[in-house]
């Protein structure tokens, strides 16, 4: 069997050492392990070497397997350790973390088994000695791994330390040891005279590592895994070594309020859950009885229900209770008896060094008063006991108030998670708990009675202790809840620096000894009592600076700490400099603060500082803000608000009746505004934003705003700001409105226009309407006074206000006029006022009227009303209004009606009609024409323009009278109505419009005129004019002349005159016509225009015989009669005359007329007129 196994092992080892797959090799080695250790342990010696070879294997898995092999081997036979210690050391320094971890875990059991083996073994040789040294080295290395970077390594180290703390301490009667660990080593089994195992030293070491562990548990930057492991470890230790119960409970206490800040929310809740779990398990432990109040309070804080707590409470027999709280004499007797017992037996009550002395003290002081031996008097206990009495309501309130100052801005995550409402506030148990919490904090910060006591003890201790135990414990370990770094500022309790401590210290120290016992009414009544007395004593010793425990009890007062004593006033300049420097630092921390997300804190700090400080900070702050105002304007805003809050007395809770003083606020606001005003770039609108969001606008600020608005380039923004202010600031609305309205007659055009623009927009709102109109009217009324009002002028021009100038007149009007389009009613008062002002002003008014009137439109009932009830003296105004209205659009019917009414009934000034001419009927126009053309030439021209539609576009314009009709009407004006000359001027105006009076139109006019009887005086003039304008009309004119002949034009002298003139002009076309005249008339013609005769003779000569013969002889005789000389000279006169031919003049005229017409038609065909 053994042979077989041996062979198999060899085979397996060979395979494992071959280059193969790791997993398979691990498998082989496991198999080997199984075979050797389970089947035939005797083979271990044979194969140990071979197996250990694998410790240098490449594969980490193989090395881990070897580690577990060694572990099991050691458990099997502890002596093997001597052989494998080197391998273990090698593996401990492995570069693979997993292997290291595995080894540390293995070491937990190896160390125990080795210790156990050593304690039993009497035979110690060199090998064993060196092995133990190596072991110690390894142990130290593992302990040092507590500071490793690797989380897992730290966790493993915690487990190892837990084991050390357990193994190197004494098991006591109330230790609850799990079954599996029952056989574990404890110091109890080590003999006092062991050669290499020094019991005392080992025990001390155990305490030391325990302290390390506790310290580690409370260190600041712990991962949650480590924390949970460490908590598990200490709870475990507390269960198995009740001596540590007090420390562990304290640690939990401290931990619960001081969780590492690095934990995230869910980790905090996990950790709290574990704390709760561990505390509940401790609660079960009989040794925890004395700590039940603390534990229960803690558990309640952690959210455990009463039922949960009760469930875990051990069934306490009255006997055990009595035993725990019984008088000291019995204990001491028992203890002394036990101490004499042999070391292997469990000592039930052990006293550690720190409590030793206080025990001695209390023993010497009083036989009946003693400490509970289980209850170690650590610094916290002492301080807590000291504090209990001081926690009266006044002090607590003070503490809370003072701590408010250091309250963090945001609730830390750990606090949020750990906070539970205090269920039993004010009960003795809770006060005790609070005292302990405070005690922990104070001790950690190096204050309090307990701390001082410990410190003094430390100085005395070395003298008493063994030589072996010479290493001085660090103070932190004495404190019990020492932190590995400085007292945390960001912990959830506000840091207990100087101030709160001094408050407590100075107020109540003197009464400590009397007040403490009186409050101790809790379950652990006696414990507290003894604690109190023992704490009072060390205080005395400390005060006496005596290193010897004194037997005489002398209550001497502590000298209370006074802050004022320790301080020295700083020089004023120095103070100034420091504060300024500090302020600069805050200013320059912009980036840092933003990154850290505390920008708002910084802002608040700065504004508060600036607000409270004197001038210097404000200047700095201003400069800072204005250096980059775009980015920092919010600082300015919050500053302003702070000033306001300060000025309004919101901040001064202490002096609620303080008089409100806004001068600083005013100053700040104005300075900010002034700066923003001067800023070249106004696009950001900060000026208006500041004004709009300012909590209060002072008069000075208004002044700045006024200045701003008067700046030509900025008035736009300024006015808009003003408008916003009017809208948003109800209380000051009237004031702003007044300012705005004052600007409406500012002498700077831009300012005025902007103001009017805003006023107009405001005017649309019902609530402002009245005020604005009232103001406008007020200014309008100023016009009626003899001199311009002072309000019109800015300060510097005050002296020049003696007379109205055009400028000053104009200033009064724009707002009013601007309002008119939106409120037509306003036109009535205007008209009224118009009647009352002098000519200059009237002229100005008329001039500026155009825009508003046009804005109102001719359909405005108000205008119509005004036209209807035209006040006396306002005719010109109305004319102007109507004129403006009709300038570009034809007048509406209503308007025409009204104007007509006015014209007929009241004012017979024809000028009224001009604007509405186009709306009138033809007859009316013709009737009015004589009057119209009598007006000045400009007006006449305007009239014609209107009538002819020259100014308006063709489509919309429909004149009631055609151009031809107009001209005809002009001709028909009787000279009685109008002078001929005026009519002539009028007609020539028509002729000038050649685009309208084309020859077609003229032809129509002439044609119609010629039919009128009598022919209008100006007819021939018109014909001549037409002819001169359009020479091509000559044919047509011939026709007309023909008509005149038939109408016997010679009966009208003027026409006849014109006829002759026309004939003269139209030579040679007029010759045939002349021939048609009756001889007397022809003769008359020749008489007036003798030159016609020659032409006519030449004409006749050029005619054919037949034509010639058609000329009546009477005519011929008239011609010849006067041209005798000519015919003789030519010698052809006689032959020309055909005496026998007689043609009726009428027919001849007709014939010639037809010929003429044909000629004309031919001409027209050849050369089109147009």
């Amino acid at each position, binding site marked *: 069997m053994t042979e077989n196994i041996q062979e198999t092992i060899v085979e397996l080892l060979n395979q494992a050492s071959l280059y193969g*797959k*790791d*997993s*398979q090799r*691990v*498998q082989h080695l496991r198999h080997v392990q199984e075979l050797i250790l389970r089947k035939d342990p005797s083979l271990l010696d044979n194969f140990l070497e071979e197996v250990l070879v694998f410790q240098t294997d*490449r*594969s*980490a*898995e193989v090395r881990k397997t070897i580690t577990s092999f060694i572990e099991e081997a050691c458990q099997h036979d502890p002596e093997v350790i001597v052989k494998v210690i080197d391998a273990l050391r090698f593996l401990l320094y492995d570069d*693979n*973390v*997993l292997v290291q*971890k595995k080894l540390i*875990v293995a070491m*937990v*059991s190896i160390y125990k088994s080795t210790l156990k083996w050593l304690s039993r073994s009497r035979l110690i040789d060199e090998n064993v000695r060196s092995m133990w040294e190596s072991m110690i080295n390894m142990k130290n290395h593992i302990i040092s791994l507590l500071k490793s970077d*690797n*989380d*897992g*390594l730290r*966790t*493993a180290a915690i*487990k190892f330390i837990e*084991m050390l703390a357990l193994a190197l301490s004494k098991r006591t009667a109330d230790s609850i040891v*799990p*079954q*599996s*660990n029952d056989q574990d080593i404890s110091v109890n089994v080590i003999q006092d005279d062991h050669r290499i195992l020094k019991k005392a030293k080992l025990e001390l070491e155990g305490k030391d590592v325990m302290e390390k562990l506790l310290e580690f548990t409370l260190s600041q930057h712990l*991962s*949650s*895994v480590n924390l*949970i*492991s460490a908590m*598990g470890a200490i709870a475990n230790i507390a269960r198995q070594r009740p001596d540590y119960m007090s420390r562990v409970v304290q640690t939990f206490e401290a931990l619960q309020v001081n969780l590492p800040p690095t934990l*995230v*929310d*869910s*980790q905090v*809740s*996990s950790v709290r*859950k*574990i704390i709760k*779990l561990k505390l509940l*398990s401790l609660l079960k432990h009989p040794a925890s009885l004395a700590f039940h109040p603390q534990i229960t309070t803690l558990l309640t804080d952690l959210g455990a229900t009463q039922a949960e707590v009760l469930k875990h409470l051990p069934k306490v027999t009255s006997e055990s209770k009595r035993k725990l709280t019984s008088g000291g004499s019995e204990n001491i007797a028992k203890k002394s008896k036990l101490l004499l017992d042999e070391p292997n037996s469990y000592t039930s009550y052990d006293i550690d060094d720190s409590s030793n002395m206080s025990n001695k003290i209390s023993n010497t002081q009083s036989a009946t008063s003693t400490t509970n031996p289980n209850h170690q008097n650590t610094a916290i206990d002492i301080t807590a006991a000291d504090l209990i009495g001081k926690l009266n309501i006044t002090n607590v309130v003070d503490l809370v108030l003072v701590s408010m100052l250091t309250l963090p801005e945001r609730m830390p995550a750990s606090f949020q998670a750990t906070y539970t409402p205090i269920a039993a506030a004010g009960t003795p148990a809770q006060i005790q708990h609070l005292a302990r919490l405070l005690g922990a904090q104070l001790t950690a910060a190096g204050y309090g009675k307990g701390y001082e006591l410990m410190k003094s003890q430390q100085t005395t201790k070395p003298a008493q202790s063994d030589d072996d135990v010479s290493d001085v414990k660090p103070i932190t370990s004495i404190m019990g809840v020492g932190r590995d770094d400085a007292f945390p500022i960001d912990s959830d309790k506000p840091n207990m620096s100087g101030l709160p401590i001094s408050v407590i210290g100075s107020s109540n120290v003197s009464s400590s000894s009397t007040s403490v016992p009186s409050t101790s009414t809790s379950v652990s009544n006696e414990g507290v009592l003894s604690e109190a007395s023992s704490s009072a004593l060390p205080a005395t010793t400390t005060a006496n600076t005596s290193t010897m425990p004194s037997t005489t009890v002398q209550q001497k007062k502590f000298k209370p700490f006074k802050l004022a004593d320790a301080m020295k006033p700083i020089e004023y300049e120095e103070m100034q400099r420091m504060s300024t420097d500090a302020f600069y630092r805050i200013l320059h921390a912009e980036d840092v603060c933003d990154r850290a997300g505390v920008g708002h804190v910084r802002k608040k700090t700065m504004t508060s500082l600036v607000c409270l400080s004197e001038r210097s900070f404000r200047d700095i702050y201003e400069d800072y803000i204005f250096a980059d105002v775009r980015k920092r304007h919010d600082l300015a805003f919050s500053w302003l608000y702070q000033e306001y809050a300060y000025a309004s007395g919101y901040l001064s809770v202490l002096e609620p009746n303080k008089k409100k003083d806004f001068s600083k606020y005013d100053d700040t606001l104005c300075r900010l505004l002034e700066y923003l005003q001067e800023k070249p770039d106004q696009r950001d609108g900060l000026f208006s934003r500041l004004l709009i969001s300012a909590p209060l606008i002072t008069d000075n600020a208004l002044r700045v705003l006024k200045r701003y608005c008067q700046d030509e380039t900025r008035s736009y923004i300024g006015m808009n700001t003003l408008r916003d202010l009017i809208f948003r600031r109800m209380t000051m609305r009237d004031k702003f409105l007044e300012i705005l309205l004052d600007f409406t007659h500012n002498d700077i055009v831009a300012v005025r226009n902007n103001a009017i623009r805003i006023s107009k927009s405001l005017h649309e709102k019902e609530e402002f309407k009245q005020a604005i109109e009232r103001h406008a009217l007020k200014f309008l009324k100023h016009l009626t006074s003899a001199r311009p009002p002072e309000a019109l002028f800015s300060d510097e021009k005050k002296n020049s206000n003696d007379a109205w100038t055009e400028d000053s007149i104009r200033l009064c009007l724009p707002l009013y006029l601007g309002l008119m389009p939106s409120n037509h009613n306003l036109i009535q008062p205007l008209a009224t006022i118009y009647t009352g002002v002098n000519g200059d002003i009237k002229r100005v008014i008329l001039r500026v009227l155009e825009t508003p009137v046009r804005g109102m439109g001719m359909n405005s009932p108000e205008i119509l009303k005004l036209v209807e009830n035209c006040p006396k003296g306002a005719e010109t105004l109305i004319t102007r209004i109507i004129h403006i209205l009709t300038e570009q659009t034809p007048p509406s019917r209503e308007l025409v009606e009204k104007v007509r009414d006015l014209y007929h009934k009241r004012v017979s000034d024809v000028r009224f009609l001009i604007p509405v001419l186009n709306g009138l009927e033809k007859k009316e126009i013709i009737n009015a024409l004589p009057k119209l053309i009598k007006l000045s030439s400009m007006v006449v021209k305007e009239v014609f323009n209107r009538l002819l539609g020259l100014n308006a576009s063709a489509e919309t314009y429909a004149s009631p009278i055609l151009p031809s009709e107009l001209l005809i009407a002009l001709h028909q004006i009787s000279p009685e109505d109008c002078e001929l000359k005026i009519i002539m001027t009028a007609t020539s105006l028509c002729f000038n419009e050649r685009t309208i009076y084309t020859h077609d139109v003229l032809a129509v006019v002439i044609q119609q005129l010629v039919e009128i009887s009598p022919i209008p005086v100006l007819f021939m003039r018109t014909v001549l004019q037409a002819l001169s304008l359009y020479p091509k009309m000559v044919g047509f004119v011939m026709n007309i002349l023909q008509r005149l002949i038939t109408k016997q034009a010679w009966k009208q002298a003027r026409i006849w005159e014109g006829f002759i003139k026309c004939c003269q002009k139209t030579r040679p076309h007029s010759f045939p016509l002349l021939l048609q005249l009756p001889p007397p008339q022809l003769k008359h013609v020749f008489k007036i225009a003798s030159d016609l005769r020659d032409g006519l003779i030449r004409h006749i000569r050029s005619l054919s015989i037949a034509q010639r013969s058609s000329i009546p002889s009477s005519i011929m005789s008239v011609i010849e009669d006067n041209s005798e000389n000519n015919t003789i000279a030519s010698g052809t006169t006689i032959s020309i005359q055909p005496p026998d031919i007689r043609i009726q003049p009428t027919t001849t005229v007709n014939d010639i007329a037809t010929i003429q017409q044909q000629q004309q038609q031919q001409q027209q065909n050849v050369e089109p007129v147009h």
Partner: protein
Amino acid sequence: MLNSGQWIKPIKTKIYFSNVKQIEYQVIVALADTFSLHFYLVEGVDAALQIKITVIMPLKFAVVCSSNQNRSMEAHNFMSKRGLIIKSFGSGAQVKLPGPSLDRPNIYTFDTSYEYMYKDLIARDQNLYTQNGVLHMLDRNRRIKEKPERFQDCRDRFDIVFTVEERIFDQVLEDLDNRDKKTNELVHIINIDVADNPEDATLGAFMLCDLGQKMEAVDDLDNEIDEILTEYESKIKRPILHAVSFY
């Protein structure tokens, strides 16, 4: 190397070359009781180079719900398909399944097989239990393992224990605390709340599996678990409880 029916799981390993800094490869490892490795080496890399491989032992997972029926089994199913080594447990005193009404659940002991429950429920009211999905669930469960297991009765060791309810988390912690300590091996207990209904169970299984794979992917889990959990917590926006205990 791959036998049918064996677990197949990808493990990220680190391969160190003597002259190259460090290249990571996906290595497929077939798992059963043995390990075997296949390398798919990148083209161009000389396979003869000295290669030192760190093979990380696959993590052993456990999922605990109250009855080892819905949530834990869904996760068991899901994660085992993804190649994780997993066992599932219940932590309650008995196995409870929905009954005809809320206050009348069907109660079985933990050693009742899924098969039995399946048939039993069919016999009771096939319609009802088909409709509420219990039969479907049991059908799936009986294909995975024989019967429900109680966590407190199991002495297997795990690296990670997932729980799906805070109450179960507490139970598991307490149970582990009260066990006899022997090896001091670390175990992480992680709780993510999952509601006890089929939809949430599926979602929960996915989350647990995802988280498990993330844990599987790192070299030194103990060192990195905090980071993984914090990150994952912010990803799924649910609180994750995490504690450690020792075997």
